[in-house]
């Protein structure tokens, strides 16, 4: 099953009955279980759903249903980050407070995947509600780096990225609020595409920070990521923030010439604080872009690098603290013995079932939006966010894309991460938070290995220019 065939080949084999979809899915689930034992990428393996989907596909194939031949993901395994609702399948967002919760409806992206014949194999491990960089803030297991199980696979979509590396014929649905697609993609050596805010519907996504949450694909190849983007992007009337813009064929951008494209190297993203091996490999990737005919130039983007982290944490924590208010043990998820007043009851539920990082962000976010502080924190952050967008917009008048390392360090050991203070922890996100705050699409492109660990390059493009990212990302061959 680790045979390196392309997904296109695989799909046509399913369509032509060269591969029995039920038999294959059965084996696939067994492999998922095996991988999960070793690496902990799943919170839930949705065996029942996957097999019933496979059986349905088999029936349709037997009946020679005409439409089935047009399905873009026929028989392809698709995993979803645990914060994405799958009807009837336990969905916890990595939190004990949602343990046992089975949603009543499918997220928009899950509906789309099902419509295109994709097989939902399970819910991938993540930091609780997306609060983290290393997938260690989870109520359940901690996913391990596919290259070194003593190291982190990044976060918060850690399970999604690790599984993308380990499992063949599979694409993962990840989610990013401040870098949760590109950071784990970088640490796991895969392609992670975080789309423009609003390009993919958030309907059915358990909220972290509503104005920044974005669902996107993580795949072993850029083709895989582009294929899944074609399926999940588009307008959804059930998400008010979903953009009503024309659909695009993202696959058509793969391997398109980048000759004459202008790429800006973010000056502040290199040098101090960036590990040498990381810097070296990212420059190798840039060189490759030049060889392919792109024009490269340095650009200073002081504001995003200097104020990105602060702005991000103010907005994200403020929004998160209201989003998490609904978890009070009344209608779903964890509950406690019914006693005392409502205040006593929900305090007990929340004290016993939220993790430490969730509590830290609730306290931080609640503080930042209280009268007397909201002007200085929440509202100021909103203003800085506008300034950041303006600075990026100015840059995109000149450049097709901007480039930086995805993460300034190699995947760290769990033992080293444990020594970090919360603030040191937050600073790891410095490269990725700003495009997230600005709602800009960005892509992790693997550019090489050091000490048998992958290194990723971050490409950022203007709003709705995911196509360009795929175009440029597919020009880099070194990291494959």
């Amino acid at each position, binding site marked *: 099953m680790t045979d390196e065939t392309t997904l296109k080949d695989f799909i046509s084999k399913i369509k032509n009955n060269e591969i029995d979809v039920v038999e294959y899915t059965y084996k696939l689930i067994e492999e998922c279980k095996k991988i999960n034992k070793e690496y902990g990428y799943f919170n839930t393996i949705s065996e029942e759903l996957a097999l019933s989907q496979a059986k349905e596909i088999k029936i349709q194939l037997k009946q020679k249903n005409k439409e089935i031949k047009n399905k873009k993901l026929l028989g392809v395994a698709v995993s979803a980050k645990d914060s994405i609702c799958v009807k009837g399948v336990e969905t916890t967002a990595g939190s004990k407070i949602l343990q046992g919760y089975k*949603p009543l409806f499918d*997220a928009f992206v899950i509906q789309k995947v099902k419509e295109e014949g994709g097989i939902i194999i399970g819910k991938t491990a993540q930091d609780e509600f997306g609060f983290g960089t290393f997938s260690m803030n989870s109520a359940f297991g901690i996913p391990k780096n596919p290259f070194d199980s003593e190291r982190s696979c990044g976060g918060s979509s850690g399970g999604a990225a690790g599984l993308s590396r380990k499992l063949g014929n599979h694409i993962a649905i990840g989610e990013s609020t401040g870098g949760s697609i590109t950071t784990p993609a970088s640490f796991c050596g895969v392609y992670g595409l975080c789309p423009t805010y609003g390009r993919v519907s958030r309907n059915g996504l358990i909220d972290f920070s509503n104005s920044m949450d974005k669902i996107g694909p993580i795949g072993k190849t850029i083709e895989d990521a582009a294929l899944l983007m074609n399926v999940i992007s588009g307008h959804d*009337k059930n998400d*008010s923030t979903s953009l009503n813009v024309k659909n695009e064929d993202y696959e058509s951008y793969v391997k398109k010439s980048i000759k004459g494209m202008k790429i800006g190297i973010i000056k502040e993203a290199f040098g101090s604080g960036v590990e040498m091996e990381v810097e070296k490999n990212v420059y190798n990737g840039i060189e490759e872009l030049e060889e392919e005919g792109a024009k490269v130039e340095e650009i200073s983007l002081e504001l995003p690098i200097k104020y990105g982290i602060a702005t991000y944490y103010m907005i994200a924590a403020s929004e998160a*603290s209201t989003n998490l208010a*609904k978890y*009070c043990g009344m209608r779903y998820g964890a509950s406690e013995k019914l006693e005392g007043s409502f205040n006593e009851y*929900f305090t007990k539920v929340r004290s016993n079932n939220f993790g430490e990082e969730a509590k830290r962000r609730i306290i931080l976010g609640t503080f930042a939006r*209280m009268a007397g502080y909201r002007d200085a924190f929440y509202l100021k952050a909103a203003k800085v966010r506008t300034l950041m967008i303006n600075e990026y917009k100015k840059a995109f008048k000149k450049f097709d894309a901007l480039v930086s390392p995805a993460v300034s360090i190699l995947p760290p050991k769990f033992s080293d991460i444990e020594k970090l203070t919360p603030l040191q922890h937050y600073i790891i996100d410095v490269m990725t938070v700003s495009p997230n705050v600005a709602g800009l699409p960005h892509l992790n492109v693997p550019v090489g290995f050091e000490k048998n660990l992958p290194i990723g390059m971050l490409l950022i493009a203007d709003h709705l220019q995911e196509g360009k990212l795929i175009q440029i990302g597919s020009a880099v061959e070194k990291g494959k």
Partner: protein
Amino acid sequence: MKHFTTDIIIGLEVHVELSTKTKLFCSCQKAKKDDIPNSKCCPICLGMPGSKPVLNKKAVEFALKLCLALDCGISPELIFSRKSYFYPDMSKNYQISQYEVPLGKRGKLMLKGGKEIGIARVHIEEDPASLIHPAGLKESTYVLVDYNRSGNPLVEIVTEPELGSPEEARDFMKQLITVLNYLDVFDINEGIIKADANVSVKESGYKRVEIKNITGFKEIEMALLYEVKRQKEEAHKVEQETRGWSSEKGVTFSLRKKETEEDYGYIIDTDLTAIEITDKWIKEIKKIMPELARDKVKKFIEKHKLKKEDAEIIAAEKGLAEMFEKVAEEINPILAAKWLRRELVRVLNYSKKELHEVEIDEKHMIGLLKLVENKKITDNVASKILEKLVEKPFDVKEYVKKEGLEAVSDVSELERYCKEAIEESPKAVEDYKKGEAKALNFIVGSVMKKTKGKATPKEVNEIILRFIR
């Protein structure tokens, strides 16, 4: 301390449920009062993880109509905020409301006497669920939650503290309900209207007391009357606090002492995009805005030459005003106005019914008043027919014919009845001649009996006088 011009200062925050078909942020049908609890809800109004609100544009249209009717300045953008607090009736533990930028600002509403009350703001928000205390508010050891109401569209109307008495507050509510009825944005039978009232009196140095959650506009006046009396009598003991209103006991009671303003930690709800309220949209709404009571009053005075007082009374009730306009097309407006505002209202009051609850319509009124106008029946007979019409409508003309109720217009016939009556009551004639003017009434009454009320007393009076002088 602020300088107030009145001894009593009252400000109201009124919550009105808009009569849209569906809820504010989901496509759930709005529940009726007798629907099974928790039968009209979905993941959105239940606040399930992953659900996202989608705005009901109709609710915005209704709220915009209200803003225009209250002469508010309208915000160029519609922005929603999250008002955070934990309470068991809140599905998300935050309420989607509006904060920094309300939909409407700086409006006004005129009271009966012409005094204008400032409207500080009008905004849209969602209703929480309803809580049911099976053993009573204080006694129950648990509550049940019914989410049928959760997510219903509300508008909150906040007045300036310019109401000078409980009576003015009641009148304000009455005027507001008139506006809501004209706009057809509030269902008086199914909808809920609630108010929080801020009350302070000079005697206590204008210490602000808030009374929460008073349902129904008559209750509002009662609660305010009680509270004003309490504050005046216990002036030195009045504290800044929040009080509740018990309609059963007719008293307000302390809920919590309030040292600081509650902090709801408002942030923008970014699940909902800011919606531009364009001039084009406002123009479209202005086009479909119905005539309001104030327009009707003007028209009734100018076109139909009614007295101001009559015009105001008729215009105050939408149904009555609409009936008047139709009736006045065929009947002398002055006569029509007299019959609608006096007789019809009297009969309705007597039978304890509202106009919209009875079947009588303009056709019946026109039929009846045509006969009155042409002196085919007397006022007396007409009043009696009206009483019957309110019970159950019928064809007036046929009924009059069948019952032989046409007025006696033949003078010789009337003279015959009068002569008979005079002959039958020698004592009354004698008394009258002695100077007892009242004795004449006895003879008139006797004639009226003989004619079954089909004669006009005035005419009968004249004939009798002619005979006995």
